[in-house]
């Protein structure tokens, strides 16, 4: 594999210069990266074309990602989507999605950081079993949980309630976030805490004033995952909510090309609208993503 290339810093290099320094090597690298990036971006460009073409006319056999005729009709149709009773469904569902996702993020961060802190810093009966249980829970197939979850939410009176979805989403996101955060907390030297204890700081002060501020990259990734879990999910939202006014946006997006209809133009426009917040978050947090996700694993 030629890509296994690595160039050591120039300072340490002896006088002999490798052939990799020639402009051809660099051009080849950019050619490969450019090609891969193009392949990666192409489906999204096609979505953009379908969304910006009038009606479903963007679904054409042309390879050209630029629409022949630009129209914002699909976007307008998606944004003004209303129920027969005159409710502005798009607005309601956007609000639902935003409120549910933000609440999930807050709850997810709270639950994951506290648990990960205990798993990282304390030794207590049940610690190993708890960590194992979190890991194993990732293997539970979703189909198995649907009926029981429905029954439990019904028993708790959380069916048809946004709060029910928030709680479910937050717990779905917890195991991955706890493991990731715990790995990150493990890399923070204990000296800091020890000197803080000398100064009379409480356990909570240490968690709140030292550990959390030092773990911002990992906390940011936790926030991103919690938010994504809630923002992108539609099977549970569709199952647990009855009224279209209570749905989240993905339910509507899916319905454009679901079992009943094939409105590719509207689907593409809605997809873009739904993806924008997540993409913005990814761009904002991508540096943290690289650091926050792996530092724990690398330590071992």
């Amino acid at each position, binding site marked *: 594999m030629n*890509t296994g290339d690595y160039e050591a810093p120039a300072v340490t290099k002896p006088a002999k210069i490798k052939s990799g320094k020639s402009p051809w090597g660099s051009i080849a690298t950019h050619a490969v990266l450019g090609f891969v990036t193009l392949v990666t971006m192409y489906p999204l460009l096609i979505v953009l074309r379908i969304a910006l073409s009038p009606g479903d006319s963007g679904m054409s056999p042309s390879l050209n990602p630029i629409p022949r005729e630009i129209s914002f009709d699909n976007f307008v149709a998606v944004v003004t989507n209303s129920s027969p009773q005159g409710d502005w469904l798009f607005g309601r569902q956007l609000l639902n999605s935003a409120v549910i996702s933000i609440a999930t993020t807050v709850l997810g961060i709270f639950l994951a950081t*506290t*648990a990960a802190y205990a798993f990282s810093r304390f030794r*207590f009966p049940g610690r190993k079993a708890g960590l194992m249980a979190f890991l194993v829970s990732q293997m539970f197939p979703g189909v*198995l949980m649907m009926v*029981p*979850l429905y029954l*439990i939410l019904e028993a708790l009176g959380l069916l048809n309630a946004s709060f029910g979805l928030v709680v479910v989403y937050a*717990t779905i996101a917890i195991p991955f976030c706890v493991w990731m955060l715990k790995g990150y907390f493990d890399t923070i030297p204990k000296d800091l805490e020890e000197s803080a204890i000398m100064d009379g700081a409480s356990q909570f002060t240490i968690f709140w004033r030292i550990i959390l501020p030092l773990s911002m990259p990992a906390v940011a990734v936790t926030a991103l995952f919690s938010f994504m879990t809630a923002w992108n999910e539609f099977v549970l939202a569709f199952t647990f909510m009855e009224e279209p006014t209570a749905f989240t946006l*993905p339910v509507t997006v899916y319905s454009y090309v679901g079992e009943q209809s094939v409105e590719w133009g509207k689907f593409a426009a809605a997809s873009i609208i739904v993806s924008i917040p997540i993409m913005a978050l990814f761009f904002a947090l991508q540096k943290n993503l690289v650091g926050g996700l792996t530092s724990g694993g690398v330590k071992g």
Partner: protein
Amino acid sequence: MSVDAGPAIQFGPRAPLYARISDALAAALVVGIVAGSVLGLTRYNDARDHRRAVETQVGAIADDLAQRVASAGPGAVEQVPDNVAAAYVVTSGGVDDFGIAVGSDVAAQNVRDKGVVNADAGIVKQGLLNRSAELQDYFDKKQEIPKDRRYSVVKLSDTDNAFSATAQVVKDGKYDGMVHVVTRVPNPAPSTPTSQLLLMLLLSVILGFAASYVPGIKRRVAHGLAVAIPTGLTFMAQADAALVLWPGVVSLVLGGVAISGIASVFRGVREQPRTYVYVVPAMIGMIVLVFVPFAMGVAIAFFSKDGDFTGLGNFQEILNPSATTHPNFYWTTSVTILWTVLNVLLHVSLGVALALVLNRPKLRLKAMYRVLLIIPWAVPNYITALIWKSMFNQQYGAVNSLLDVLGIDQVNWIGPGSSFASNFIADLTTNTWLGFPFMMVVTLGALQSIPKELYEAADIDGAGRWQRFRTVTLPLLKPALIPAIILGVVWTFNMFNVIYLVSGGAPENETNILITEAYYAFKVLNRFGLAAAYSLLIFVMLLLYGWMQNRITRATEGAFE
């Protein structure tokens, strides 16, 4: 699952009180989870049986009314049973006795849309529901009548248990209108009341407390009994003896194995309460919304479609398929494994390769490439799947357009009559696009933490590029990559959206993986037991994989220190 041992405690006559209370609480917790799960399940089955009975009952009222209307005219609506809240009759020659404008409009239009009654349809109405909104709501929820029955029934609302039934009026062998009846049927008392469970929880507390007086290994037997007896007794009132036996046996084993561990957690709570304050919120959430549903799901796997206990029946059906079943479980499992292996291989090799290129110190536009290559991860995966589905469309799809440009014949990727290979490739392409950024980001992070000195040392030893990669980079990527691979395998194994949305299992369910088969059993066959059995098999396979992988690579070893 082992639980870290707390401080050693001598059990027997002189055990401290808090240790006895810990045992009591642990017993109650296990009873709560096992008996609670099964109780939830019986409630669910009861509710479904009740629903069926109500449908027959309410449907019969509508059918009876329809026949009387056919012989005596719309006026027959005056004689309906007392529990009928509202009845509507729409006949072709009828008169609107009550003259409700909104109602008649809605009804007439609704019926006209179905093309069965002329525009002058009359309406007769009686009863409590007379507000137009309720009427509208009622017609919105009305269903077509199934072909094999004379009526259809819809539940109108959960709060007042109202059902609406629709039946056809048939006069002289010809369709002559419709009858709609709204009836309130109260829910029956549950066959196992909640108070019964609470009583048995109390019993388990007492028995668990008593068990702490038993020293040594016998204590485990005592724990088992402290859980099995109350669990079994909870379901005494149930007609099905299996509902007493099986939860009893399961809790006997579970109690003997797990109570010591759970009790040591409770003792830990007393000894270092502040520690547990941090874990308890997440743990409660996980127990209520992940582990209890899982326990209930496991229980469901042993029940048939009609809610009868079938033991291993569902598993037998899956594992011992008839010769004509295709694709059977073994085919689907092979496809699932092939799917997982190929995907993870592609994700890791693509991800690592791109990360190595992006990690070159002097690369220009590095940030831009990185951002653009992460994008597939940021797009919700159901959207990705549907986009690729459109790209594999035979007529408009970009993939065939590209083949056209290259002078290759078009391929029927996922359309009717397409082959297993083309469908599988379509799924695989989609999921590769979806999955490589995660591995790339993990690798990028790991690469950043490899000390430069190691490469310098390798250089001095005269290592070539490949050697440097094999002896320095790869070993140091392992600690980050192996947990990522384990997660990747688990996620891919259960990657429902891509298979379901792109190939949809075509041709003939051959590209289905286990999780989509489970969903098929759940959604199409309405067989929750079968779906749960499938899911349980998936879980066991993943658990075995995780355990083996962990034994070989010791991926999680450091995490428990």
